Every structure is written in structure tokens, then in C-alpha cells.
């Protein structure tokens, strides 16, 4: 069962991170919209350390407004960025503190 549905607003968690991650620093604490589901994949937190048959999790495509990612964004208001996150990295959207 997917925790988040297409259209849900989600915020990327900022969990302490050491050594390796595939959840980019520039997305931490940022809020976007789920636009697509991806398959259940082995999470990088397991794969990167040799647990090839590690924990699988639903992944999500999240779309952000660039203006919400970068305070100094020089492009257009309509510009966006999409990236993918496993379920553990997302939480329901909360008010952003910039």
C-alpha cells in the first residue's frame, strides 16, 4: 500500500546523514507534490552497503517549484524540478521555514 497518492503535498525529511545518501541536501525540508509512483525498489541505504536483497520501499516522483528550492532562483516562476524519494524520506507537507 502506498502511503502517498499522486497529488499529495509532501516534505522531504532532513534525517542526519553520514557517508552516503541519494536524498539530496538541496531537497531536505522542501515541500513538493507527488506526481508519479515508481516501483518498489531496494533502498540505497541497503544497496550501497552490500545488502542487495535489502528492504524494498515504494518510491515517489516529487515535483518542486524551483522558487521553493532556491531563495535566489533566477529563472521563471513556472520552473520546476522533479526527483525521486523512497517513502521513508517523505512526510506529509508541513509549513516551510525558509
Amino acid at each position, binding site marked *: 500500500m502506498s502511503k502517498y497518492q499522486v497529488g499529495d503535498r509532501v516534505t522531504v525529511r532532513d534525517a542526519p546523514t*553520514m*557517508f552516503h545518501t541519494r536524498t539530496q*541536501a538541496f531537497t531536505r525540508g522542501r515541500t513538493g507534490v507527488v506526481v508519479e509512483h515508481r516501483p518498489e525498489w531496494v533502498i540505497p541505504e541497503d*544497496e*550501497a*552497503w552490500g545488502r*542487495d536483497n535489502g528492504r524494498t520501499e515504494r518510491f515517489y516522483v516529487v515535483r518542486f517549484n524551483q522558487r521553493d*528550492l*532556491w531563495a535566489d532562483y533566477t529563472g521563471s516562476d513556472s520552473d520546476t524540478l522533479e526527483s525521486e524519494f523512497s517513502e521513508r524520506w517523505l512526510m506529509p507537507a508541513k509549513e516551510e521555514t525558509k
Partner: protein
Amino acid sequence: MSSHTNFDVLQKRVRALAPEEHTVLDSPPTISNDFFDALRHVVHDVGGQPDGPMAYKEKEEEDWEARTYVTCECLAWRGVWSAEERRRAENDLGETLYFGLPYYARWIMVAAKTLINKGIITPDELSAKLEEVRQRLEVKS
């Protein structure tokens, strides 16, 4: 060159003449939490870091690079490691090696390290092999 380009070239040189003071890092007795945060930043996570325009060049792949790609993929194909382990091992190299090495040099470095790390080959085995290959290739050229 246009006067704009001359201006840029000159200004770059002038700016590079300005003195810089670097803090030498030699395993300091203590560091701040902020500095620790910076040191701990996952190396490959570069999105959004400040950087300026750069001429984006094409580069023909050298033979060793093409072979490196295949060797690393074959190691993953046959289950020695996964691509994600390789990427994590590249981060483990740390900033100096990560940004000092060319792209495929990172790949072959971590392949070598991983084989030793997993107890598949010994360091002296690698050492002997490197010596043997060096001699063989130099004899050829």
C-alpha cells in the same frame, strides 16, 4: 578577442593575485560542529553548490576508460558488488580523491579497493600484479 573577453581575462588574473590565507588542516585537536557538518557532507551531493560557467567539452573515451566501464559492470553483473556500492565507495574516497581524479579513475580505484576490502584479493597480490603489468606494458611501448 573582444574587449569584454580581455576584461574578463585580466580581471581573473588580477583576482588570482590577491593573497589567500588557508587554514592548514593537520588533524586539529578540536573542530566546531559547523565544520564537522561540512566535513561530513556526503561528497557526491553537489547539486546547488556554487559554481561558475565552464566550457563544456567533448572528450573521446580512452581505451582504458572503456575497459574500466566494462570491468566494473562485469564485477556487478557477476555479483561482486552493485552499482550503488561502487557509488558509495567513490564517496568513501573523500573529497581530495573524488575531485582530484578523473571520472573513470574513480571507478577503477574503488574497484581495486573493494576487491581488497571484501577479502577477495590481498594487497600484496595487487602490488605484484601492478608491477608485472607495468613491466609488460612498458616493454610493449
